[in-house]
C-alpha cells in the first residue's frame, strides 16, 4: 500500500536532460511543456494589459501614441485568446489528467500529442515574430476591410501564426475524443467518468468542428490581403460582413472552448472540497454537450448592429437566450452540491467559489447582451469588454488557477503554501471585480471599446479599473512565486493530500511514467464519497476486479 517512498521513479525523474523533455511522448510531460508555453504567453498578454490600463488612467491618451495603443490591445487579445485561454486548461490539465482519470497510461496518439505542442509553439513563435516586427493593430477580431486593405501592420504574419496554432487545437481535440472513446479502464463506463472528462469531451467536439472554420477564414483574409481577391471587399462586390459571420461562427463557440474546460475543473473542485458527489451528475454532464451544440447557433449576436436584418437578429437573440439554460443548470447544481457537503476552504475551493460568483455575473450579463433592444446601446462598448472578461478571465482563469492548485501536489509531488494560496485567490477575486465591474458602468454610459482617449467625465471609473488591475496583477504574480518555491521547499504531498476521490489520487505523486503500477479496474461511480462504504478518508485504493 505505501508506495509513496521517495526512491520510486516517477515521470519527472525517469529520464533526464533537455532532449528527454523535447522528445517526450508522455502526456504528463507534454502537459508541463504546455504549462511553460501558456505561462509565457499569459505573462506577455498581461504586460500588454498593464500598459493598456496605464494609458487609460488619464483621459487624454498621453502615455503612448494611438498607433501603439491599438497594437497593445490587439496583441493583448490575440495572445490571451489564442495562446492562453484556448490552450491553457486542455493543454496543461487536460493532457496531464485525462489519461489518468480514465485509468490508462497515455492518450491514444502520443506522437500526435507532442506534435500538437510543437504546432502550438510554432504558431506562437510566428505570432511573436509579428509582434517583434511591430505587431498588429486590427484587434483580435481582424475585421476587414480594415485588416485586409487599410492596416499597415503585420496582419499576414500574425494571421498565419494564429492559423497554424489552430491545428494544434484540432489535433488535441481529436486525440482527446479518441482517447475517451477507446482507452477507458475496465469498468470506467461513460457515466462513471469524472465531469472533468465530460467537459473536455464536449470541448473537443467544438475544437474539431469549429477550428477549421476559423482556419479557413484567416486563410481567406491572408489571401485577400496578399492578392486582393475581393471576397470581403465591397468595391469588388465582396462583403465585409461575411467575414464577421465566418469569424464568429468559430469565435463564439471558442468562448465555450475556453469556458467548458474551466467548468470541468470546477466540477472536480466542488466535489473534492465538499467530499460529495456533484449534484445532478447527468445534468451537469449533458449541459456541457448542450452548451457545445447550442454554442454553434448563436454567432449572429455579434452582428446585431452590423446591418443584419432584424429578423435574423431576433432569431439569434432567441438562440442566445437558450444557451444560458445549460449554464444556469450547472451553476445551480454546483451550488446545491454544497448542501449536506463537508465543505472545506482550501485555495482551490476559494477559486471555485470565486468562479461561481464571477461566472454568474458574466453569464447573466450575457443574457443582457442577448436581449436585442439592450444590445444596440451597449454593443462595442465597455459593457461588452466587462462581460467577456467576467466570462473568460473570471471563468477560465479562476478554473485554471483553481485546478492548478488542486492538482499541483499530483503534478509535482509537493504542496504549495496554503496561506499564500488563499491570499492569491482573494486578491484575484477582489482585484478582478474592481477592474471589471466599473467597466459595466462605463459601457452603459457609452464609453466605446478600443478607445485610446475618452471624455473626462469617465476618468474616476477608469482609475478604479486600473487600480483593480494592479491588485489583479499581484494576485496572478503571487502563485508564480510560491508555486516555483514549492518545487523545492514544499511539503511532500503523498498520494492523496485532499482525501479526494478519483483515479488520479490513487497513484503516486508524482505518478510513474506509466501512471499506475497496477492497471486500475473501476467498480464505483465518480465521487462516491458517501456511497458503497469503503470511504477510508485517506488514500482509497483502486477497487480490484471481482
Amino acid at each position, binding site marked *: 500500500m505505501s508506495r509513496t517512498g521517495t526512491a520510486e521513479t516517477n515521470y519527472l525523474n525517469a529520464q533526464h536532460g533537455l532532449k528527454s523533455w523535447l522528445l517526450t511522448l508522455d502526456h504528463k510531460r507534454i502537459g508541463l511543456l504546455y504549462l511553460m508555453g501558456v505561462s509565457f504567453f499569459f505573462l506577455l498578454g498581461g504586460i500588454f494589459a498593464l500598459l493598456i490600463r496605464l494609458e487609460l488612467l488619464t483621459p487624454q491618451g498621453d502615455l503612448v501614441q494611438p498607433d501603439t495603443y491599438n497594437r497593445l490591445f490587439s496583441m493583448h487579445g490575440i495572445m490571451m485568446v489564442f495562446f492562453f485561454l484556448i490552450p491553457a486548461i486542455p493543454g496543461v490539465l487536460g493532457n496531464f489528467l485525462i489519461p489518468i482519470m480514465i485509468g490508462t497510461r497515455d492518450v491514444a496518439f502520443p506522437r500526435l500529442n507532442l506534435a500538437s505542442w510543437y504546432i502550438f509553439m510554432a504558431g506562437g513563435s510566428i505570432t511573436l515574430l509579428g509582434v517583434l516586427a511591430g505587431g498588429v493593430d486590427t484587434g483580435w477580431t481582424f475585421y476587414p476591410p480594415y485588416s485586409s486593405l487599410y492596416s499597415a501592420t503585420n496582419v499576414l504574419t500574425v494571421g498565419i501564426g494564429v492559423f497554424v496554432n489552430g491545428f494544434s487545437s484540432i489535433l488535441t481535440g481529436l486525440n482527446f475524443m479518441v482517447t475517451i472513446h477507446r482507452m477507458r479502464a475496465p469498468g470506467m463506463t461513460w457515466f462513471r467518468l469524472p465531469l472533468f472528462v465530460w467537459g473536455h469531451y464536449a470541448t473537443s467536439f467544438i475544437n474539431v468542428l469549429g477550428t477549421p472554420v476559423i482556419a479557413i477564414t484567416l486563410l481567406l483574409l491572408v489571401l485577400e490581403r496578399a492578392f486582393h481577391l475581393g471576397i470581403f471587399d465591397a468595391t469588388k462586390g465582396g462583403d465585409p460582413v461575411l467575414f464577421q459571420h465566418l469569424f464568429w461562427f468559430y469565435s463564439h463557440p471558442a468562448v465555450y472552448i475556453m469556458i467548458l474546460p474551466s467548468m470541468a475543473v470546477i466540477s472536480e473542485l466542488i466535489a473534492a472540497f465538499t467530499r460529495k458527489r456533484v449534484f445532478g451528475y447527468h445534468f451537469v454532464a449533458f449541459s456541457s454537450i448542450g452548451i457545445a451544440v447550442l454554442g454553434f447557433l448563436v454567432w449572429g449576436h455579434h452582428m446585431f448592429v452590423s446591418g443584419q436584418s432584424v429578423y435574423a437578429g*431576433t432569431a439569434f437573440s432567441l438562440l442566445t437566450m437558450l444557451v444560458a439554460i445549460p449554464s444556469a443548470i450547472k451553476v445551480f447544481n454546483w451550488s446545491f452540491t454544497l448542501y449536506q457537503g463537508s465543505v472545506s476552504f482550501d485555495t482551490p475551493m476559494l477559486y471555485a467559489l470565486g468562479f461561481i460568483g464571477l461566472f454568474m455575473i458574466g453569464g447573466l450579463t450575457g443574457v443582457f447582451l442577448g436581449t436585442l433592444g439592450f444590445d444596440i446601446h451597449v454593443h462595442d462598448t465597455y459593457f461588452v469588454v466587462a462581460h467577456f472578461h467576467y466570462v473568460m478571465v473570471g471563468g477560465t482563469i479562476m478554473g485554471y488557477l483553481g485546478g492548478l492548485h488542486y492538482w499541483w501536489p499530483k503534478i509535482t509531488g509537493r504542496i504549495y503554501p496554503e496561506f499564500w494560496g488563499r491570499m492569491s485567490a482573494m486578491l484575484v477575486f477582489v482585484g478582478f471585480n474592481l477592474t471589471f465591474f466599473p467597466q459595466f458602468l462605463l459601457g452603459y454610459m457609452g464609453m466605446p471599446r478600443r478607445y485610446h482617449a475618452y471624455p473626462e467625465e469617465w476618468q474616476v471609473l477608469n482609475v478604479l479599473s486600473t487600480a483593480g488591475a494592479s491588485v489583479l496583477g499581484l494576485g496572478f504574480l503571487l502563485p508564480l512565486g510560491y508555486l516555483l518555491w514549492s518545487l523545492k521547499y514544499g511539503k511532500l504531498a503523498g498520494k492523496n493530500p485532499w482525501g479526494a476521490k478519483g483515479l488520479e489520487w490513487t497513484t503516486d505523486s508524482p505518478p510513474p511514467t506509466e501512471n499506475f503500477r497496477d492497471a486500475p479496474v473501476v467498480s464505483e461511480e465518480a465521487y462516491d464519497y458517501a456511497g458503497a462504504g469503503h470511504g477510508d478518508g485517506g488514500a482509497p485504493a483502486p477497487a480490484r476486479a471481482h
Partner: protein
Amino acid sequence: MPFKIPFMPEQASSMAGEVDALTLYLVAMASFFTVLVAAMVIYFAIRYRRRSPDEVGGSFDNSALLEITWTVIPVLIVLFTFVWGARVAFRLYRPPADAVQYYVTGKQWMWKTQHPTGQREINELHVPLGQPVKLLMTSEDVIHSFFVPAFRVKADVLPGRYTSLWFTPTKTGRFHLFCAEYCGAEHSRMIGWVTVMEPEEYQAWLASVPTQGSPTAAGERLFAQLACHTCHQDAAGAKGPALGGLYGRPVALADGRTVLADESYLRESILNPAAKVVAGYEAVMPSFQGQVSEEGILELINYVKSLPAGGSASVAAASEGAL
C-alpha cells in the same frame, strides 16, 4: 425627469426611456439570481463546513424536481426577456413614417453629415427638437459605427452599402457622438456632437449655413454631367428604363427575381449595374465605380427618388421596344 439614476447617460430621445426600463428590469432580474445563488452558497458553505478531517458529505445528490424547477423557471424568464428585448428592438429598427432623412458618410476619421436641405457639417449634426430623424449612412473606407449614447442608438456604417438608424430628440443640448467600431489609428478621435435645437432656432441655424442647394438639385446636375439622361429618358426606345417613380417599387429582374427599389438597390444599380439587370433590358449600363464620391451617389439617389411616377406608360413602352 427630476430623478436621475446614477450611471445612466442622459435620456435625450424618445426611445431612451424604453431602453432604460428594459435595463432596469435586466438588472433587477440579474440581481435576484446573483443574490439567490450567493446566499445559497454562503449559507451552505458555513452551515456544512468541514468539522473533522475525515468527514465526508451526504448522499443526497440528485433530485428530478429540483432539476426541473431550475430548468423551467430560467427558460420562462429568458423567453420573457427575449420578447421584451425584441419589442424594443423592433421599435429601434423601424423609423416612423414621418422621419426626415439626413445623410451620414463615415471616413477615417471623421463624420460627414448632410441635411435634407443641403447643408453639410463635419463631426457635428444639428437637428430640431421633436422631429423624428432618420440617418442614411455609408462609409468611404472601413467599417465605422454611429453611436449617440444619449439617444441609445447605434448602427454600423459599412462601405458599399447603406445602413440606417433613427431617433426623435426629446431634449435640447449637445450630445456625444462616437465611432463605436474600431477603424484604425484615430478611432477614438472619430467623435463629435449632435446638437438638438428648438425648431425655430434650427431654422435660423440652417439659414446661416451656406449651401450649394439641396441634394436633389445637386443630384440633377450630376445626372446631367455623367450623361445618365442619354440612356434614361422617358422615351420609347431608350436604352435604359425610365427612372420616374422607381423608388419604393418592386422591380422585375432579368433572372426572374423581383427586388424592392430601395436606396441600396439604387446604389448598386449605379456602381455595379450588372449585378441586377432589369428584365427587358440589355446590361449595357457602365459602372460608375470610382467616378462618383459617396456623397455624389447619395445626391444621385436623391434625384432619382424625387422623379415623379409620371412616365410609367413610357416605361412599359420602352420595355416593349427593347424586347
